[in-house]
C-alpha cells in the first residue's frame, strides 16, 4: 500500500526548481491549470506538453516518476475516454454498430481530455515532489492572506493542511495494522467474496475512525499544553524570499498562457 503512495513525497535533488519560492510555484501551478483548460488545437497541446516536460526535466527527477503519478487515475481516465468516444458526436461518422456510434470528433475530444488530465496531474506533481510540506503550507498561508478581509483565516486553513498531510502516513500505517488484526480474526479482505467484503469494511472503518479521533484529541491536548493559540502572531520556520528565478519561473507560464490564448 505504502510504496504505491507516490503522491505527497518529496524527492530531493537540489535543482533550481527545488529552491524556488513555494508561492511562485503555486501561482505557476494555478496558471498552468488555466492554460491546460484553455488548450484547443493540436499545436497548443504540443507546445504546452513540450514546455512542461522541459520544466519537469530541469528538476532532475526522472520523467517517468512524474508519469507514474498519473497511474492511480488510470481507471478514471479510461472511463472518461470511453465516455467521450461513445457520447460525443461531431465530425464524421466513423463506426455505426447498433446503438453504438463513433464520430471522429468524439475520438478527438476523448484524446484531448485524457491528454489534458495527464498534463495536469503529471505537472502538478512537481509541486509536491519538489517542495517540503511545511514550505508548501507556509506558501499557501501567504497566498491566502488576502482572504482575511472575508474573515477567513489563512492560518487555520494552512494548519489544517499541515496536519492532514502529516497524518496521512500515520493513519495508513494504523489501517494496515487493523487490517492485519481483523485478518487474524478470520476477516481477510483478500480472501473474501465481494458480498462479504463490504460487511468486513465496517470492522476496519470503525477502528480506524476511532483511532483518528483519538489522535486528534491527543494532538489538540498536546498543542494546547504547549501554548498553541490560533491566530496568535507567530514566527515562521522558513523565511520565504522572492528571487529572480521565481520571476523567471512564473514568466514562463505567463508567456505560455499568452501564447495559447492569443495564437
Amino acid at each position, binding site marked *: 500500500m*505504502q*510504496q504505491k503512495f507516490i503522491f505527497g513525497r518529496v524527492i530531493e535533488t537540489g535543482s533550481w526548481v527545488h529552491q524556488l519560492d513555494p508561492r511562485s510555484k503555486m501561482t505557476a501551478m494555478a496558471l498552468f491549470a488555466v492554460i491546460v483548460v484553455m488548450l484547443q488545437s493540436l499545436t497548443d497541446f504540443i507546445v504546452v506538453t513540450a514546455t512542461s516536460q522541459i520544466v519537469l526535466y530541469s528538476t532532475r527527477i526522472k520523467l517517468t516518476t512524474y508519469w507514474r503519478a498519473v497511474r492511480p487515475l488510470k481507471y478514471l481516465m479510461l472511463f472518461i475516454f470511453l465516455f467521450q468516444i461513445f457520447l460525443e458526436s461531431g465530425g464524421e461518422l466513423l463506426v455505426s454498430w447498433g446503438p453504438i456510434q463513433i464520430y471522429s470528433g468524439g475520438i478527438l475530444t476523448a484524446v484531448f481530455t485524457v491528454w489534458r488530465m495527464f498534463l495536469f496531474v503529471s505537472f502538478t506533481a512537481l509541486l509536491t515532489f519538489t517542495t517540503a510540506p511545511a514550505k508548501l503550507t507556509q506558501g499557501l498561508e501567504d497566498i491566502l492572506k488576502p482572504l482575511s478581509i472575508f474573515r477567513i483565516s489563512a492560518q487555520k486553513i494552512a494548519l489544517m493542511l499541515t496536519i492532514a498531510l502529516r497524518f496521512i502516513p500515520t493513519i495508513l500505517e*494504523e489501517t494496515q*495494522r*487493523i487490517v*492485519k*488484526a*481483523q*485478518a*487474524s*480474526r*478470520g*476477516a*481477510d479482505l483478500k*480472501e473474501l467474496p465481494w458480498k462479504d467484503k463490504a460487511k468486513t469494511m*465496517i*470492522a*476496519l*472503518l*470503525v*477502528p480506524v475512525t*476511532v*483511532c483518528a479521533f483519538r489522535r486528534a484529541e491527543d494532538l489538540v491536548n498536546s498543542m494546547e499544553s504547549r501554548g498553541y493559540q490560533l491566530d496568535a502572531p507567530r514566527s515562521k520556520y522558513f523565511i520565504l524570499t522572492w528571487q529572480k528565478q521565481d520571476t523567471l519561473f512564473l514568466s514562463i507560464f505567463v508567456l505560455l498562457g499568452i501564447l495559447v490564448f492569443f495564437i
Partner: protein
Amino acid sequence: MPIVFSEVSHAYPTDPSYLALDRIQFQIQEGQFVGIIGPTGSGKSTLLQHFNAILRPTSGRVQILDFQITPGEKIHDVKKLRQRIGLVFQFPEQQLFAETVEQDLCFGPLNFGATTDEAKALAVSALELVGLGTDLLDRSPFQLSGGQMRKVAIASVLAMNPDVLVLDEPTATLDPKSRADFLELLHKLCKQQNKTVIVVTHRLDEVLPYTDHLLVMHEGRIGFEGSNMELFQQAEMLKKCKMAIPKPFQILRTCELITHQAVALSTPNERATFSIEWVAHQIDRMMTAWYTSVEGEVSHAAKVHLRQSD
C-alpha cells in the same frame, strides 16, 4: 505437531536489501509457554506475523501444526490456520468495532463458521476466562475502561478457541497488578488447556516465572534459544543483544561469587522460575553449602551471627 522455523528470512518490499528476519531457525513444542524477547527493532513483531501467515517468509519455510508456509506458494486453507493460531497484536483494544461487546466477541467465531448460538456460548466463556463479568456483554466496547477494553480484545481472540496463542506485548501499558494477573491467566491456559502460548515482550523479568522456552532476538537473528536456566548461564550474551540482565540473575550471580557455589536445579526436570521464592530458596541453599564448607575457618559465634541476621 510442533512449530518449526527453518532458515526463515523476511525482507519488506519497501527495502528488499534489509533483512528484518535473517535465517531464523527454532522449534517450539506443543503446550509450551514460550517467551520471545528482544529490544525494539529486533524483528520480534515481524517474526510474530509469520505464525499465522499474515506475512510470508521471503525465503525458508515455516511449519505450523500441519500447515507449511513457504514463499510464494498459496496456503491451502489459510482460514483454518488462522483459527487455530490466535494472534493478538499490540494494543488489541484498537481493533474493537462492534456495537456491543458480545458482537465483537462473536466476530471471530462467526468468521470461522460457528453458528450464532455456538458463537454466543464461546463469547461468554471467553469473557469469563479473562475475568470479566457477563454483564458487560450488552455494553458498547467504547464505554469500557482501557484495561477492560484490552481484556475484551484478548477475549475476542480466545473466543476463536485457538490451539496456539501468540501475543505481541500483551502487558504493555497495563498496571503492574493487571500485568501479573494476565500472565498468570496465560500460564493457566497453557497448563490446564494444553495451549501453546507464545509471548513477545521486551520485559524478560516479567515472563521468566512462566516460560518453558526462551528465544532472544537481536537484529533479525536468534541470539539465544533455550531454557531459563541456560539463559542464566549465558546471561552475558543479553548485553550483546542490547538487553538488560534481569534482577534475579544479578542477585544470584552475586551470590554465586560470594559463596563459590552454583545455582542448581534439584531435579533435572525442574523449571527454573526465577520467582522470588525460587531465588530465595537458591540463596538459602548456596549460603548453607557455603557455611558448611567454611565451617572450620569461621567460628561458631560468627556463624550464629550470620544466621540471625539472615
